[in-house]
């Protein structure tokens, strides 16, 4: 029986070499565009998220004494797109309370574009944001007195070594070194703050619960204003691209179905003969499924080799590895759709009466 089915499969292939080739090309084309669109979507959402973000692009501030373990636990939370650990404190400047930041370690999204001077290097260096320099008339090279909100020490004097640009997106808090911060508040009281950015898809509340579940004495503060807007925009672009992707899926499913129909139709007479002599319907599904599997696997491998160069020419920044990963996971969706259309076309064939198979073939 198995060998008979394999022969049927073999016959399917011999009979319809041209259609098979077209099918493979169709799979190649639609799978590539499906994957490329998906990859472009991820790139686009990163950009959407970034363009939607202000100079303080974070959704959670979490105060705690972080160790490697805790940091890793948070990094692994679903929905997180960025985690930075900063040190900061609150100071009085005249009657205002402002936040003073230590110069971030590498890999921060904060934009530190200087208008004048340079970033702080010594413990009494400070860089002022454009707004504060303007409001109080501070100039580069002058000194400024700051007093910690949390301790009763005397005001501490800093030397203004730089002024940040007033452009949109540039940090609006003053900036000193870590040692500069310890002059205002002793190191053991400088609790680090984790600044967390979400991917724009996760709900804030859900993520907050996850953070709370970790426990470990973390003080969690949620920043809501801009996230919802970014989320809405991302949802829009997601909807758009997912719509396009489903369209590609539907078009490829229907074109495959048509090709499949033509292939099967050209063998309808013999299928009719086989059914007449008593072959049960389910057996006849197997060769068609094998054929679809074959077409999709060849399609997959051709895409595997052709996609990276195509993506590169198109200027997609995603790395080859990530692209192939997309291909890999999208392939299953595609194969599922292919198998489903095979089933639908086959059922359509198998549900027609045997005399009709005889007639249709001629």
């Amino acid at each position, binding site marked *: 029986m198995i060998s008979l089915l394999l022969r049927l499969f073999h*016959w399917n292939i011999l009979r319809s070499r041209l259609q098979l080739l077209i099918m493979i090309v169709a799979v190649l084309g639609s799978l590539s565009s499906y994957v490329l669109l998906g990859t472009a979507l991820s790139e686009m959402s990163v950009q959407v998220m970034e363009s939607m973000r202000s100079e303080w692009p974070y959704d959670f501030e979490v105060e705690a004494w972080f160790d490697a373990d805790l940091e890793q636990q948070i990094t692994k939370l679903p929905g997180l797109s960025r985690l930075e650990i900063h040190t900061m404190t609150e100071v009085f400047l005249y009657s205002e309370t402002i936040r003073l930041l230590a110069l971030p370690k590498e890999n921060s999204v904060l934009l530190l574009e200087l208008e004048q001077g340079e970033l702080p290097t010594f413990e009494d260096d400070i860089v002022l944001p454009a707004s504060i320099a303007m409001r109080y008339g501070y100039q580069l090279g002058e000194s400024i007195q700051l007093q910690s909100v949390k301790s009763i020490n005397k005001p501490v004097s800093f030397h203004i070594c730089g002024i940040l640009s007033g452009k949109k997106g540039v940090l609006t808090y003053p900036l000193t070194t870590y040692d500069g911060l310890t002059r205002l508040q002793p190191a053991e009281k400088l609790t680090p703050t984790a600044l967390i950015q979400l991917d724009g898809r996760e709900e804030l509340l859900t993520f907050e619960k996850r953070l709370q579940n970790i426990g470990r004495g973390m003080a969690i503060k949620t920043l809501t204003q801009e996230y919802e807007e970014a989320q809405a925009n991302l949802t829009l672009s997601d909807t758009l691209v997912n719509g396009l992707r489903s369209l590609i899926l539907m078009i490829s499913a229907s074109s495959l179905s048509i090709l499949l129909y033509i292939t099967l139709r050209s063998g309808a007479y013999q299928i009719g003969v*086989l059914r007449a002599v008593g072959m*049960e*319907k389910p057996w006849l599904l197997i060769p068609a499924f094998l054929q679809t599997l074959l077409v999709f696997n060849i399609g997959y491998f051709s895409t595997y080799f052709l996609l990276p160069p195509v993506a590169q020419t198109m200027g997609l920044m995603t790395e080859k590895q990530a692209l192939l990963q997309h291909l890999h996971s999208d392939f299953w969706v595609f194969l599922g759709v292919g198998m489903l259309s095979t089933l639908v076309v086959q059922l359509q064939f198998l549900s027609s009466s045997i005399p009709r198979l005889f007639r249709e073939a001629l």
Partner: protein
Amino acid sequence: MNQQSAVIGKRISRIFPMGDTPVHALREVSITVEPGELVMLLGPSGSGKTTLLHTLSGLEKPDQGDVWVNDVSIYTLNDWKLSKLRSQYFGFVFQSFNLLPTLSALENVQIPLRLLGIKQPVKKATEILARVGLGERTHHKPSQLSGGEQQRVALARALVTRPKIVYADEPTGNLDSQTSLDMMLLLRELVSENQSACLMVTHNSEMTHLAHRVLHMRDGQLVESASRAGVS
């Protein structure tokens, strides 16, 4: 019910809905084929011969009436059981394209044996191919065989399971007259060796002397004309 009969059709009607004027392909046709009997069905094109054959052989359900085999009304069976019944009790020879092109003659003949799970399919298929005179050509593909040889393979396939009845729809329609005659003689011999019945559609009235009984069809109705086996 006569338990001996190979197949019984009772008041079979088949109507094809064709817009305003439906086609009455079969009008209350009743027919019984006895075991070992060779019945030929003649009639002008479009008189309903093929439709009757399809109905009696379990390929297409009639609109009215029923078909009995072994005291079973076959259209009450589900598709799976009906397929089984066809492979067990019926053999088929069609006008053309009977064989799967990628299978050798031997493999084509084995199909019904494998479907029924009969033991020693190769041996049985080889034997019957030798019987139809193709012992030397068992490994040929259909494309390597002449039309007459292909129909002999089809005949071998139809008879290899020793069916109760063989249905043949113009099996010699694509063959020249000498090959047709050879084919008919072979069919008659094999059918009687197997004690199978045979219901054959043909438009060739020259062959009717080979039949035990000849039926004429016209406008979906049977016109029986008495006839007995003639030449041996």
